[in-house]
């Protein structure tokens, strides 16, 4: 793995205003710095409201930080673009387009010719298992299938980095497991740099090379842990591995501390 950062946040501060003029806002991010190397799969772990989604939105270019810089390959990020693909918690497919047209949205916007992207589209549709549903429309699919289509859609333009904001959070446990396996399978063929936000510790340990744990508001990176398990990973084997339990215990400890802090601050 190259040590040159593809994605970097340097000392980023971000504050959201309160609901009305004059009411106190809150400091969402306070001096957040992180870096992703090429091909890394990094999970951002933390409880609700700690700013994980904010980091993704900043990287996607939807918001600008109050202080600090965001860099892609050394160049500052200031607007959304196809080199930073994103998968949201809701599939957010376009209901007026078929699955195939949804998946090929990126190349079509870029003006590519159909010959160029149709082969890739077929490949991705097969990768996510939707090759028989290419002409279906989103409302005809289940939640899991829609998210698979959203995955293919974000991935087809071959982005430099994939930002994933709790993409499996809305799915049931079984589907979630299947999607995690699907994700790692595809990732192992493309080795795209991925920043994956979740609050599920098992999910983070299964997917990531590195786990970043965020503190409660104001958000900052509290701890960073390497996930040493070799790929391809099998959930059954992982669970039996004693190192898994220790790692999970360590993470849970930190997460619970942060959770307690945020609860206390709310109660106070």
């Amino acid at each position, binding site marked *: 793995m190259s040590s040159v950062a593809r994605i970097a946040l340097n000392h980023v501060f971000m504050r959201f205003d309160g609901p009305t003029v004059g009411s106190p806002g809150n400091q969402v991010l306070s001096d957040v710095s992180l870096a992703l190397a090429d091909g890394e799969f990094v999970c951002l772990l933390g409880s609700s409201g700690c700013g994980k989604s904010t980091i993704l939105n900043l990287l*996607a*270019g*939807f918001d600008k930080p109050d202080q600090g810089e965001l860099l892609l390959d050394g160049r500052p990020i200031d607007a*959304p*673009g*196809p080199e*930073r*693909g*994103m998968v*949201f918690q*809701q*599939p*957010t*497919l*376009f*209901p*007026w*387009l078929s699955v195939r047209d949804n998946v090929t*949205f*990126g190349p079509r*916007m*870029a003006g590519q010719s159909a010959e160029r992207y149709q082969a890739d589209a077929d490949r991705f549709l097969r990768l996510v*298992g939707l090759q028989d*549903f290419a002409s*279906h*429309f*989103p*409302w*005809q*699919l*289940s*939640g*899991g*299938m*829609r998210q*698979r289509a959203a995955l293919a*859609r*974000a991935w087809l*333009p071959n982005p430099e980095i994939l*930002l994933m904001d709790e993409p499996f959070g809305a799915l049931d446990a*079984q*589907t979630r*497991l*299947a*999607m995690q*396996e*699907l994700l790692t*399978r595809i990732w192992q063929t493309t080795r795209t740099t991925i920043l994956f936000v979740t609050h599920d510790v098992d999910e983070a340990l299964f997917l990531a090379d590195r786990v970043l744990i965020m503190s409660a508001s104001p958000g900052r990176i509290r701890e960073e842990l390497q996930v040493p398990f070799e790929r391809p990973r099998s959930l059954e084997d992982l669970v039996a591995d004693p190192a898994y339990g220790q790692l999970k215990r360590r993470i849970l400890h930190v997460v619970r501390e942060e959770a307690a802090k945020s609860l206390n601050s709310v109660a106070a």
Partner: protein
Amino acid sequence: MTLSQGLANTQARPEPVRVDHRWRRWKHPTISCGAVTLFLVIWQLSGSLHWVDALLLPPPSEILATAGELLSSGYRQTPLWEHFAISTARALTAFVAAIASGVPIGLCMGLSPTLAAGLNPFVQFLRPLPKIALIPLVIVWFGIGEGAKFFLIFISSFLSIVVGSAAAVLGVSQARLRAAQTLGANRRQLFTHVVLPNALPELFTSVRLSIGIGWTSLIAAEMVAANSGLGWMVINAGSYLRTDVVLLGIVLLGLTGYFFDWVLVRLQRRWVPWTGKDA
């Protein structure tokens, strides 16, 4: 669990299966038909048994007889179908003009807050105004020709379409826009490939409503010195206390409005099948 097992769990949602009998499918239409039939029976009895003065409420039998007369000898020497055609033509011309001008203006208002701020005071003031109140002014401006009638129908549909189109644009979800942005859509593409298709269901609904409103303005329009048309027929017959003709005219007007709406619903189902469905 293996990948294939997991995927097997995420099959396509099955089409809702009608396990119940055919009866369930026809239950509601049957109830509707039954209600209408009951209503007609009570109405007919009210006339036949003289519960109500036939002058005030002619029973269906008398209206049918009148329909027969009008079909054979026309109303005021003009065949009934001609009155129907004239009214429909007046309305359709005004609708087409209202849609062609109202949708672009509404879309622009949705996209440009400045334009919206400029036009909104007028649109919001004129829209709830009963168009009948405008008749004296309209006569002075447009005279008593077809222009006046066109304008009255046009203005009611137009204002409604403008408001609906603006709302349809404003209602696009931020999530969809953001998804398109991360896929590389530029500003123009965001409009043509996201905002516009996203707006279509609401646009259609707005057009449906506006045409309904425009159709009800037909009577106001035909109060302006007409001597043909269904609306004129209703008003003129009223001045001779021909309540049978009035009711027949009302039924015809109602059925035609219902038909327009039905056509639009079918078109909507065909062209915008994703209406109301999430993704």
